[in-house]
Structure formats: C-alpha cells, structure tokens
C-alpha cells in the first residue's frame, strides 16, 4: 500500500497556516512591565554606594576579579572596608526578614583576598587641573583615588612617614593587618598620585598650595582628645585613647595594672583590647549610655567581652588621685531614662554598678576634635569641625574639606564617602560642568554613586531602592550564613594576630549565592519563562528585558516573578 493515493488533507479538513501574531492582544491593556535597575537596599545603606548586588553575583559565579572591580568602582579600600566597616548594608539586607542577612562585609573581604583588579579611569578631563589633598586617611585616600580616576594630577600630603592616617595608626593590627592596608594603598598609587610624606602643612603652606593647585582638599582628621571637664583630669595615669593606640611605649605601661577605659565607641573598644593584649591585670569600660557613641557593630563588643573586658554603664563625676597619681573614679548611677535612651542589644551591663571604681590607669576615649594648629585656626569652625556643605565646600573658593575634619559622620566608610563627594564636586567645578542634575545628585539622596554620575541615561534614585516581592521569600530556601574562622579568646589576647579570618573561595561563593541581587538584573529569565504571552524579550547585546507592546496583555506575571524587583508594572508611555 502506498500513501500518495490518499486525498490531500487540505481538501477534507481546514488547516491553519497563519500565525496568531496577527492578533494585537497588546491593545487589551495599557499596563506594561517597566524595566529599571535600582539601588539595592544595602547599596543605599552603604555611604559609598558600593554596587553590592553586582559584586555578589560575580562572586556567586566564582568571579572574584570581577567582584573586586565592582567594589573598586566606588571604593578604593575593599581590603580595609572588608574588615573594619560598620556594615550598615547588612542591617538593611532584604534577607533579614527571611533568615539572616548576607555577610556582605565578609564577601567584600573575600573579593579583596582572592581577586585582583586595577582601578578604572573614568575620564581624562581633569588632566591639566592639579589638586592637592592634605591628609592620607580614608577620606584623603578616597578623594585622591577618585580625583586621579577623573584625570587630575594629585599631590597627596601626609604629616607622618606613612600613608594611611588613622587606618595605619589608629586601628590595631588584630583588626586590620598592615599588609592589607598597604596592599590597598599600593593599588591606589598605581594612579597619577604623588605621595609626599613627612610634610606638615601650616597656614602659609595652605596658601602656597592654593596658588600652585586648582583646588585643595583638607582631610586632616581629628587627632586632639576631647576633655571630660570633671575634676582631676590632670592626674598622672590618665591617657587620651588615641595617644594610647599610637604609642607602643605608652601601651607597655599598662602591664599588670588595672585599666579603666572611658567611652563607648570604636576607640574605647580598641584601647581596651590593646590594653588586654599588653598584659593589663583587668580592663573595664565605663560608658555613658546617654552621651557616648556606640561601637560600630555588635561583633566588636562581643569579641571584647569574650576577651574578658567588662562593660559598665555609669557616669564618671571625679578622678580621685593619691600623690598626683590616679587611684579611683567616682561615678554616679545611671538613671533608667538615660539608659534606655541609647542602647544596643549586646551593650547590657555585665557587672553591678559601684560608686567608686579603683584603678591604676585611665584611658579616655570620649571623642576627638581638630588639632589646634595654624592651619585649622584660620578656618571657620563649628562644634569642633570645619564648616562646610554636603559637597565639602568651605566658604573659601577652591578649598574643600572631607572626613572627620568636616561636618561628616565619623566612621571610616563615611569619611571615604565624603572624600568621594568632595572629589566629584571639585572635578565638576574645575571642568565647569556642574549642572542641576549633578548638584541634585551630590546634595540629596542617602548615598552617592560616582558610576551613576558618569553613566549616560537616567540616574538611579537612591530614595527608591528595590523592593522585594512575595515570590522571593517563597522560592528561597532558608540557609545559615557562612561563619568566618575566629581565633579563640584566650589565644588571641596573647598577641596582635588578626582575630577574624577570611572565607575560603568556595565558602564565599556559597555565601554570595544567598543574595537576592535586589535591583540588579542577572538574566535569570524568570520573567520570560512566566510570560504566558511570549512577549518578554531581551534584545541581543542588551541587559534590559522589554515587553512587546503589540502582544503584552499586562498581566504582570513577569513583575510578580522578578525576585530582584527590577521589573514593575506601570502605565504605557
């Protein structure tokens, strides 16, 4: 039997030969998905606006070099920030509502430990416009880095013999090893930056710099101790916190003695832990819950408490001496209202309050202020800082301020952020390209991204960060974060080795894989997979997904499935 004898089927049954694409189902709705990459909540919380989602995705794919490059877009010190940053980002992580935040700081450290990348030049528009930066702490380094990336030849002046400022001298090696800092600084110096160390700038020096450079940025920091204003402060044995951290000969004096540290912030915690490492008999911290700054993160408080440091809330009223030497502190009790005012979870008192605290050495770490030098006294000051606006501009044209010397938050990452804002402000002013959009970006918004400044097209709005939708938590399994290896307390107090270790690359990849990559499209294709109308398309070579307006019925399945919050439904333009 052969088949060609059969009838042509077309003669007995109708056969559809055209496509349904002829039907313009797009007319059913005016609502369409809108593709817009956004800041992730963590990036908004990060003062330097690190592109965390992008770095996380790269590490989850094992690309440590790419992740480091992503961090270097916004911040020159990933090795430093990966260790000492106060990680605001983690408290805003969308994963907090699910299981536990992604360990972003640890991942930044992993990118720096396992990756290599070079700084990228943004423009060479500043080639003929030299800028001087006074001070090489986090603010000065960040400013010099970003200025050099925008083409400016930078002179980086430093009073001491080493670059790094507070990072080099004020943060002990068990938190930030010197070689990590030096590695970050070496990377910065691959740019067109001329470091000049052992160079102190006074009032006249500043005038000269203003003549020889188009702009000068002051990032000198605050190095003078704040006094407590209570009786007995001139007794022997009372040491300002920063002096203690800077000078190893002073540190050696605490061996075998009873040490009390006054203050609640990072300097206080660092000073107490350094005293412990120098063989102090006992170390306690007296902190005033209503007045003292709180340490940047709970981790440090926990680590200090593990090392046997007591934290007691109280109010020193008088230093009592014997033959001119400190022997005890008289305190008044903390009122409940003061206590509840300013309290974090782990800052619970761990011994009962006493009125009299006997001691041999007192370290005061209640804050710092500007050094009284001719450089600073010629400038207008308020609350112990130089007066400046958000961009770091002072009353004098061409003179900018960044970091602790200016009216900015006193953390490493905030100093870096103020350095970046000032650098961009200097660049725009000198190249004459300051416009309304730039001013708005520099002055407003919770965070400031230099990459957004230099990219074409619409700028991201840091007040509208990516939201998470119901689908994200449903599809994500609950996982525990990777733990960083930590040296046992009794072992680590014997020396200055780094307390917290980094993750292995495999662990880092797993940790970064927990990220939702909020606000950044990673090409997961879920929107296209769940589009019933086959109208979600990604044009070749582009990252953006777009709905075919002729066929999209506006159901919103794509936006509902977009775990990253990049797609949202909106009216057709």
């Amino acid at each position: 039997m052969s088949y060609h004898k059969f009838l042509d089927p077309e003669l007995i049954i109708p056969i559809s030969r055209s496509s349904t694409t002829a039907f313009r189902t797009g007319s059913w709705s005016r609502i369409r998905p809108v593709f817009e990459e956004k800041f992730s909540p963590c990036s908004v919380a990060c003062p330097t606006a690190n592109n965390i989602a992008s770095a996380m995705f790269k590490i989850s794919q094992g690309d440590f070099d790419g992740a480091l490059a992503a961090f270097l877009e916004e911040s020159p010190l990933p090795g430093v920030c990966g260790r000492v940053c106060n990680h605001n980002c983690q408290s805003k992580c969308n994963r907090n509502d699910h299981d536990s935040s992604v360990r972003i700081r640890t991942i930044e450290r992993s990118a720096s430990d396992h990756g290599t990348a070079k700084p990228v030049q943004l423009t060479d528009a500043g080639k003929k416009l030299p800028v001087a930066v006074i001070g090489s702490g986090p603010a000065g380094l960040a400013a010099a880095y970003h200025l050099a990336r925008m083409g400016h030849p930078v002179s980086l002046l430093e009073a001491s013999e080493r670059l790094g400022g507070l990072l080099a001298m004020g943060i002990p090696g068990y938190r930030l090893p010197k070689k990590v800092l030096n590695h970050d600084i070496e990377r910065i110096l691959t740019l067109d930056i001329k470091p000049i160390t052992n160079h102190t700038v006074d009032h006249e020096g500043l005038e000269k710099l203003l003549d020889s450079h188009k702009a000068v940025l002051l990032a000198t920091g605050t190095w003078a101790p704040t006094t407590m204003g209570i009786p007995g402060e001139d007794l022997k044995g009372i040491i300002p916190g920063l002096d203690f951290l800077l000078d190893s000969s002073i540190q050696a004096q605490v061996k075998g003695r009873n040490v009390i540290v006054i203050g609640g912030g990072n300097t206080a915690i660092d000073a107490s832990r350094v005293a412990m490492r120098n063989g102090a008999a006992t170390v306690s911290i007296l902190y005033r819950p209503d007045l003292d700054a709180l340490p940047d993160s709970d981790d440090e408080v926990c680590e200090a408490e593990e090392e046997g440091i007591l934290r007691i809330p109280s109010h020193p009223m008088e230093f009592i001496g014997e033959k001119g030497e400190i022997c005890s502190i008289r305190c008044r009790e903390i009122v409940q209202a003061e206590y509840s005012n300013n309290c974090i979870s782990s800052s619970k008192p761990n011994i009962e309050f006493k009125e009299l605290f006997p001691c041999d050495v007192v370290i005061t770490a209640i804050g710092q202020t500007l050094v009284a030098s001719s450089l600073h006294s010629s400038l207008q000051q308020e609350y112990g800082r130089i007066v400046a606006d958000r961009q770091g501009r002072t009353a004098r044209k061409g003179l900018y301020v960044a970091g602790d010397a200016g009216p900015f938050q006193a953390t490493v990452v905030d100093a870096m952020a103020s350095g970046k804002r000032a650098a961009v402000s200097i660049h725009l002013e000198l190249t004459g390209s300051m416009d309304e959009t730039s001013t708005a970006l520099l002055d407003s918004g919770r965070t400031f991204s230099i990459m957004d400044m230099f990219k074409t097209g619409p700028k991201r709005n840091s007040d509208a960060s990516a939201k998470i939708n119901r689908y994200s938590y449903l599809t994500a399994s609950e996982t525990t974060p990777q733990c960083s290896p930590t040296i046992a307390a009794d072992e680590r107090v014997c020396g200055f080795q780094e307390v917290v270790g980094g993750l292995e690359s495999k662990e880092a990849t797993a940790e970064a894989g927990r990220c939702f990559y909020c606000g950044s499209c990673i090409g997961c294709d879920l929107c296209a997979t769940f589009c019933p109308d086959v109208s979600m398309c990604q044009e070749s070579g582009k990252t953006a997904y777009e709905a075919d307006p002729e066929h999209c019925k506006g159901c919103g399945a794509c936006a509902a499935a977009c775990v990253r919050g990049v797609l949202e439904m909106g009216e057709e333009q």
Partner: protein
Amino acid sequence: MNNNNTIDVLDAGHAACPGCGYAIGMKTVLKALGSKAVVVVVPSCAAIIAGPFPNTSLGVPSFHSAFEIAAPTAAGISAALKRQGISDVTVLAFAGDGGTFDIGLQALSGAADRNEDFIYVCLDNEAYMNTGVQVSSSTPMYSWTGTSPNGNTKNKKQIMEIMAAHRIPYAATASIAFPEDLMAKVEKAKTMRGTRFIHLLAPCNTGWKIAPDEAPLVSRLSVESNIFPLYEIFDGLRYEINYQPKRLPVENYLAVQGRFSHILPDQIKAVQTETDRAWAELCAREARTRQLYGDTPVAIDCESGTKEI
C-alpha cells in the same frame, strides 16, 4: 521580535486570558519538546490558545481533535508516523482535566492499556474553565465553582494512581512554578517509548479567582504546602519524590484564592489533615518501592506501541 527564551514553539497573540497558567504550561512543555513533534489539542483552553482557524500559535504541526479522544488521536498519529518509517518525531497530546479525569478517561485508559507510544500532558486547572467554571472530578474539596456554589463536596480524583495502575512506563506530576523540573520531565519522557503521562497543575486565574499575576505564585504555594507534590512513577510501581517542599500550612495556599474564600476553619483543618496523610503515604510509598525495586527500572514484559497491521 527576537526572543531567545522560546524558539518558534508558541506564538504571541493567542487568546488566553491575561496571566493564563495554561499558556505558561504549554509554552514550557513545547520548549522542552522541541520542533520534531506533533501536538494534539482537544476542546479545552489549550484549543483556545492553539488558535482559531486560519491562525495558530503552535510552532509545530498540530491536530484539533474531539473532547474525549486526545489519547487515541495521538496514538493514531504515532502509529501513522511509524507506518511511514518516521521514528524521530514525538507525539504529544494536550488535554484539560475535564478531557482527562472525566470525559476522556475511558479512551485514555484504552490507549494506556495498549501502551501506545505518545506523551499525554493533562493541563489541570481543576474545573471546566473554558465553559465557565463547572465542577469536574478534578476539582478539590470545598472549592467554589459555578456548579458547586457552596463548595465542592468530593475529594479530587487521584488520576496519578489510576495511570499508575496501567503500569505505563512513566507518569509524573509537574507545576508551572517549577519550569526546570517540568522541562526535565518532558525531556525524560521524550527518551522513553510507550504511554507517558504528565499531570501538570496550571492555575486558571479566572476560575480560581486570583489576580492575573498570581498563577506562578499560587502554583508554587500548591507545591510548597504539599497540596500538589512533585513526583514521578516509573512503570507504575516505583515512586520518586522530586522536590522536598517547605511544608507550609495549606492555609497559605487556600487564603490567596477567591474560590476558597468561604472556607471555614474546620474545613481548613480537614484539608490540612488530608494533605498530611497523603504526603505521609507518598513518602512511605517512595521508601517501600525503592526498597522493593531499587533504583533500576522495573522490567515489564510487554511491547510498546501499535503492532504492524
């Protein structure tokens, strides 16, 4: 427009409602099926999506058949292809839950009994949605439909157990919310011969009274709450669970759907009890059948497909 996600398998412009779970399901199945295939559609929303004459959305040759005969039509096409010496074309039938659980059950049973060579995908939206939401034997207990205005009074028919009883080489449940799992199952079925059955839960936004963007979400919930576990049955005997769900309370699944808006706390409790029982039984079956048959396929002594006439 260029779309690298679906290549010539389903065209835009079909007449499904916005957010249709059927369309998502068909698209995913067709993508895994590839272009070397013939598809049978029968009256159901699948036929609406396939398009009115003279237009079609399907990128592969397809045949519209009668409501109850998806399975024998596919068997016939498969046999005809074999007769012509064509062996690399897969025949797949799409039918709704009405066409599978109710009207087409006898015809499907006959084809499965003969172990005819085709893949049968039951797109289950748990009622006669195309005709305006009437109760079917696939409708779950307590669900509203036009003909069960106070809630359905019967439990959902266990189609997987019926199919397993035919000892067909492959039967699997799948969900549109797990596209990778669904595609893997279609691809696995493609490599086999004989009657292969895929029970695909595909929500109907209209009939389930959910928002147009909620079909993937609700499907996901159905799996995560154990209402619709994902598993495979090999040779009708050996069970294998594919996904360990989060075991969310069934209330999460019921509460998002308007068709359960009248449900009472006692009824939710009853659904939870029944779901827990079914899950425990499924786990026990998996353990028992693995112990009996191991991981190797069970040998069944029968020849697949239609014999030479």
